[in-house]
């Protein structure tokens, strides 16, 4: 595309444009400019405040980098523990529920009505952000980690089921047919032809979702659904950025551990 062809004599060369049609190209450029102009016109920025902010951010960063683990330790400890336990239970429950749902959402295995029903659930659960779902659950269940647990489970089912179903739809039909041809029942076909083929992906998805669930669990406390989010917001609203920094460092450390774990598990199941 951008081969270094030299211009020889009169022949000129320019890189191939992304959009071939000249008019379309200009139209797109114009639209982009118009959009940016509209944005500039509608987003008002309080530059005085921003200037203050830049100055304040230095102090903030300084406090983050000198974290104070001690002063809110008992709250942070409980919060982090709650986040970890919530995400663990939600991942296990979500993944277990996602298995049958994904079978229903795989076009090559499920009858149409079941397919449509499971796909509707998947779309619903994947569209709404976890915090918003959590608000609804808190209204129904009251404050506490149980609402958070339900939120994360609800979201995990949709997430895992969707990706797993895609994987099931991609499996090798030959292996399915071979098992059917032996006189195997539907469940035996699933156990012998589907499970082995999707296992590595399934394990990978599960640990990945654990990672996501943990990260989400750190903010559900903002709407009262348990986890370390409540402590974190309290610390921030009181400008205890050194305590907040301590919590964030813990969160980052746990995410790192989870990422390492997921890499290890994924390479083990291949």
């Amino acid at each position, binding site marked *: *595309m*951008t081969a*270094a062809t030299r211009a020889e004599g009169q022949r000129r060369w320019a890189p191939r444009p992304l959009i071939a049609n000249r008019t379309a190209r200009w139209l797109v450029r114009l639209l982009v400019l118009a*959009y940016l102009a509209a*944005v500039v016109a*509608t*987003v*008002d*920025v*309080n530059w005085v*405040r*921003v200037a203050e*902010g*830049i100055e*304040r*951010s230095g102090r*903030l960063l300084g406090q983050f980098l000198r974290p104070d683990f001690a002063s809110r330790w008992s709250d942070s400890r409980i919060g982090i*523990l*709650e986040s*970890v*336990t*919530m995400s*663990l*239970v939600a991942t*296990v429950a979500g993944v277990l529920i996602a298995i049958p749902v994904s079978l229903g959402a795989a076009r090559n295995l499920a009858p149409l009505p079941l397919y449509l029903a499971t796909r509707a659930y998947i*779309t*619903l659960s994947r*569209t*709404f*952000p976890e*915090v*918003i779902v959590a*608000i*609804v659950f808190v*209204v*129904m*269940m*009251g404050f*506490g*980690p*149980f609402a958070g*647990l339900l939120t994360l489970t609800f979201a995990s089912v949709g997430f895992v089921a969707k990706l797993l179903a895609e994987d099931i739809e991609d499996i090798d039909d030959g292996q399915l047919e071979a098992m059917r041809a032996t006189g195997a029942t539907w469940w035996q076909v699933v156990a012998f032809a589907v499970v082995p083929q999707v296992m590595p992906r399934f394990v990978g998805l599960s640990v990945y979702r654990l990672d996501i669930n943990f*990260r*989400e669990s*750190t*903010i559900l406390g*903002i*709407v009262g659904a*348990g986890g370390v989010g409540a402590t*974190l*917001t309290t610390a*921030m609203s009181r*400008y205890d950025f050194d305590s907040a920094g301590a919590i*964030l460092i813990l*969160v*980052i450390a746990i*995410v*790192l551990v989870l990422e390492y774990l997921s890499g290890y598990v994924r390479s083990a199941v291949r």
Partner: protein
Amino acid sequence: MPVRTVAGRRAWQRTSARTSALAFTVGVALLGLVLWSWELIARQTIWIFVQDAPEQALNLFERMLPPRWAYAEALLRPLWDTLNIATIGTLAGVALAAPVALLAARTTTPHQSVRAFALVVIVASRSIHSLVWALVLVFLVGPGVFAGILAIALRSVGFIAKLLNEAIEETDPKPIEAIRSTGAGPGETIVYGIVPQVLPAFAGISVFRWDINIREATFLGLVGAGGIGLQLNASINSLRWADASVILVAIFAMVLVSEWVSARVRSAIT
């Protein structure tokens, strides 16, 4: 060894006794951990509220339905803001992510210590939830769309840079060597050897992140960082549930449309 000879007949087991024992132990340990976690959550839960949940849910739906459609008109501006937060935030994130990725990739980093720093930036950006970023930025630059844009940008940097970093490390070294052997400097090597190879992946990742960002921009308003979340928060706080359901429908539609657009654009790119 799965094959043993028992009384002259060859017996077969799928796994050796040791592997089975190990799997059993890991399974039991995991189960114990999950049960213990559940126990912890259960102790924090007020079960009377949970028992009450079906009634609460019914009550909630009664108040939400029918949605007060007239309210939709008031949502146009918040939706526009949400779109801008996601789009401009993604653009800013992309602009920041490209250099970070170049510094983080083994093949392009100028120095190991720079690489380590870039990796820390990536991990921190990814581990911290956009809602936490939003909290910090509202404190720094004041509430509003601008804080939302910055939050989305800072959260996206790590995501985009991580994937881009992987794409860079997977580039084919041969063309890069060829460019270098023409006497090109490091900048030219990047422009001619690496950029053409990772450009499609880069574009794909950015569009993918934009779609995620639309979803995230819908709730930043919960902490004052602009977008439709602001209206959601206000309507819930004042118990205007018929308005809240209109907002939920709007969020649902917006996320679905963005997912569709993103899928279309990505399939057009690759």
